[in-house]
């Protein structure tokens, strides 16, 4: 995996992911390892993403690496009309590794084609965000002890949410049962259901959160965004149907954890935050370890 770009969740094998997850665990136990002291890593955020950028930059700093880059493209040569190709070709002469977020889909793949330095895709439009998937897998394995045979509830916007799509693909390797909870207009797209059918994986669709969550090992919540509805009335009707409240968690399994890629708006009530089953801030922290592990493996220092 040395020097191998991570653009899409399909780029790495199951074994590659286990290698990253194992190393992430090591970093969680002992985060003070200055393994990247002699490395410069570019963090190119062509569109703002506070959480992802800070997570990557924290991971780099903790490993003693140096960061160059920008947090939005307004103040860079991009605003002067420079092509992505030229930006990447230039930065690849400066840095050992490029982390990039770009609103245009396929931009990270293109960057990986033109750059002779590895690329980590930190999100390309609605296409891929593989490190989010990596930290989700890490969080699931850590809290459940294994990725095998789990009952996963995916709640919220299942149509446009790229994180739930990547998670579905990644978890399909581990014999899960899926429960999809969403408004009818934001159902899991057919192509993903076809994919599960082909693999013989069971899934159930629900219009609302009901007693079934008593069987859940993981509830993965995503935000239902107002802008996905052409009629604001439709949004008003559904927005409260997908809010997790502390009371709903009575009688759920002891090992249940609530995950959310964040930012949260109101889809998990703040009264859940103190429940030991709330895991979303730990999940965000795990992102730092997962990204530390990924960068060390790509740069060949681990």
């Amino acid at each position, binding site marked *: 995996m040395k020097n191998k770009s991570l653009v899409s969740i399909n780029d790495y094998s199951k074994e590659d992911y286990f290698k990253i997850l194992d190393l992430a665990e090591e970093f969680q136990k002992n985060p003070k390892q200055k393994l990247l002291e002699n490395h410069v890593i570019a963090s190119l955020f062509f569109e703002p993403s506070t959480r992802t950028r800070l997570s990557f930059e924290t991971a780099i700093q903790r490993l003693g690496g140096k960061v160059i880059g920008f947090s939005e493209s307004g103040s860079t040569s991009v605003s002067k009309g420079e092509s992505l190709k030229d930006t990447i070709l230039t930065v690849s002469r400066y840095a050992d590794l490029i982390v990039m977020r770009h609103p*245009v889909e*396929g*931009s990270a*793949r293109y960057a990986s084609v033109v750059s002779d330095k590895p690329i980590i895709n930190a999100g390309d439009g609605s296409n891929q965000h593989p490190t989010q998937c990596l930290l989700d897998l890490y969080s699931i394995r850590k809290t459940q002890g294994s990725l095998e045979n789990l009952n996963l509830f995916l709640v919220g916007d299942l149509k446009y949410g790229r994180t739930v799509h990547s998670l579905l693909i990644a978890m399909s390797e581990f014999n899960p049962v899926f429960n999809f909870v969403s408004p009818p207009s934001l159902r899991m797209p057919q192509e993903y259901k076809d994919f599960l059918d082909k693999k013989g994986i069971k899934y159930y669709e629900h219009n609302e959160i009901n007693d079934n969550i008593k069987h859940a090992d993981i509830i993965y919540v995503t935000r239902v965004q107002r802008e996905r509805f052409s009629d604001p009335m439709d949004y008003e009707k559904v927005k409260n149907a997908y809010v997790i409240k502390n009371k709903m968690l009575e009688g759920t399994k002891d090992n249940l954890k609530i995950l959310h890629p964040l930012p949260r708006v109101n889809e998990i009530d703040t009264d859940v935050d103190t429940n030991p089953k709330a895991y979303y801030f730990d999940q965000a922290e795990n992102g730092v370890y997962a990204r530390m592990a990924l960068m060390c493996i790509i740069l060949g220092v681990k």
Partner: protein
Amino acid sequence: MKSELKVKAIEKGTVIDHIQASSLYKIMSIIEIEKLDTQIFIGNNLDSKKYGKKAIIKIADKFPSMEDVNKIALIDPNAVINIIRDYQVVEKKKVELPETVSTFIKCINPKCITNHEKVETKFSVHVKDGKVNLKCYYCEKTTGQDNIEVIR
């Protein structure tokens, strides 16, 4: 008894037959027919037992490259390409779908990098329910057979 030809026969060249009527203009575009300088006969909305309406293209004195044949396969996998010499069909080219296609088809996703920067398109070819689906190497979105648009 030989039935009357609706489109004039050619002595030698290529006949692309059994084109679905709806695919004719796309095929003309994909093989860049306007650049050819020999005689060309085109028939459209001809009666066909198979499709109801079919189209045919006869190009005198030109023989298709494998690349042209593959391009036609993407637009109309059922089209038949006949090589004509001395008014006779001497060879039927089997239309075969390539595994990948690059450069001449546009990605349907307006947010794809190939529609934003000067990047040659590249797709992997998949068939689902008898229809060609092209998966973009970059944005990973699928362009269906009915949405295939040729880059000129």
